[in-house]
């Protein structure tokens, strides 16, 4: 939220006009914290305080990382495991956006659609996706379909709910303005409601991706033959701790990259969001 490009005339609420003298910016404090953590990791492993079986040194993890990229683990390279996970979440996300946005608009816009769909979504949304994974496996087998379906369901609810919220909070003056310029119902949705709800839709996608990613990795821990979750799980069974640590780091890195990517997308697509408008 802090790095929107702000034109000189607009002052964001909460920002200060009085320049504050800081010797260290917040970003640098975060970077230093990370460096300190890695240093601590290195120190406790190099001095032998913790056995490599429980925590391998950073150098060993890096070396293993190189090995995974070049020769692979469990018949697949790191890229292949990563690719398997990313394509699952990509498919789940794609289908979720394509269906949840229209459903969200219907819920926010139409009383009857809200009456039908709202309770359904509110019923299944609080259930942890892993709780219905067994049922999905019974129905769809253990192939790709059941995993994509699981991710899809996990991402669908937050996007649909966020879209409905966005549609419901559209400024009525903007709707009236468009109507008095001759907008039809379809034009209202296309030109006013959808762009108005876009900030909320993107927030829904951000939340959905977070939920989807953790669900996917957990699902791969249970039922998969490829993917980052599977890699970590099978390495743990053979106590290959460096692969476990590496896998966890990659999973964290992907989650972080998705979050940052979506924030950047949000800044690009909805630059007016957070402005006095």
């Amino acid at each position: 939220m802090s790095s929107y490009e702000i034109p000189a005339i607009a002052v964001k609420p909460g920002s200060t006009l009085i320049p504050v003298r800081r010797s260290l910016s917040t970003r640098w404090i975060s970077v230093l914290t990370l460096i300190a953590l890695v240093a601590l990791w290195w120190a406790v492993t190099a001095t032998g305080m913790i056995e490599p079986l429980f925590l391998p040194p950073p150098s060993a993890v890096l070396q293993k990382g190189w090995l995974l990229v070049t020769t692979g683990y469990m018949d697949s390279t790191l890229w292949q495991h990563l690719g398997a996970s990313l394509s699952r979440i990509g498919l789940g996300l794609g289908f979720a956006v394509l269906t949840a946005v229209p459903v969200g608009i219907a819920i926010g816009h139409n009383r009857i659609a809200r009456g039908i769909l709202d309770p359904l979504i509110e019923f299944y949304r609080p259930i942890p996706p892993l709780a219905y994974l067994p049922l999905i496996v019974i129905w769809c087998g253990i192939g790709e379909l059941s995993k994509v379906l699981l991710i899809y369901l996990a991402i669908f609810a937050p996007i649909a709910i966020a879209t409905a919220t966005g549609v419901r909070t559209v400024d009525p003056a903007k709707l009236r303005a468009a109507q008095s310029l001759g907008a039809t119902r379809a034009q209202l949705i296309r030109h006013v409601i959808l762009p108005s709800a876009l900030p909320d839709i993107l927030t829904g996608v951000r939340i959905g991706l977070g939920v989807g990613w953790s669900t996917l990795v957990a699902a791969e821990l249970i039922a998969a033959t490829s993917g980052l979750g599977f890699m970590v799980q099978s390495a743990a069974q053979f106590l290959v701790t460096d692969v476990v640590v590496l896998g966890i780091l990659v999973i964290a890195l992907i989650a972080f990259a998705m979050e940052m990517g979506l924030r950047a997308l949000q800044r690009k697509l909805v630059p007016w969001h957070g402005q006095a408008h």
Partner: protein
Amino acid sequence: MALLQLERISAQYPGSPEPVLADISLSLGPRQLLVALGPSGSGKTSLLNLIAGFVEPSAGRITLDGVPVKGPSAERGVVFQDDALLPWQDVLANVGFGLELAGVSREKREIRAREMLALVDLTGFENRRIWQLSGGQKQRVGLARALAADPRVLLMDEPFGALDAFTREQMQALLLQVWQRTAKPVFLITHDIEEAVFLATDLILLAPNPGQIVERLSLDFGQRYAAGESARAIKSDPRFIETREHVLAKVFSQRSAATRQERA
């Protein structure tokens, strides 16, 4: 020959026993600038919403050119108090929005939008984003947007209410200039007495409980401004002050009558 006609209009909020407007009749013809002045609760916003077609009257008839008004339409352009512009479009696209909805080609609507921006003195602001504009500039864009769709009448819902006094004065002058040049009939609501007296060719004073017309005046201060007299000279003219005080007294006598009624 009246263009817009309201015959014995009453309006009521659903579920409320008290009407917001009772037995309102008025007409708006070419070259008229009709101002509805009233304190809050006098139903002036409801009156504008009825004409715009956002709400329906509980009794009476509204016609434009003899055709009954049904729902909002591009024939009745509206300028809102809080601009209601679309922040995902730049200024030029906002002004051309009505034409876009009507299916006019990009090239044609940009030509028209540029003309309208010139009319409201905003040439050079075409590619600005909405949030980069000041309050007065936003209202100019709102005015240009309403005019670009070439409505039969222009409805203005306290368009300068949120502006500071200096900007408001400039915008009043601009409105008179635009009104003079486009010859569009304007219906404007305000709670600012001086603004009402300055702008109106025809002024109606609304009183609350229920909203009704308690005074009708024909004025010429706006026309004098359009003819070249300065705004300050007009507003300090004894006749202007007298009219303003007359209206003010009328508002207060209505108020004290209402209070007496409540006490009784």
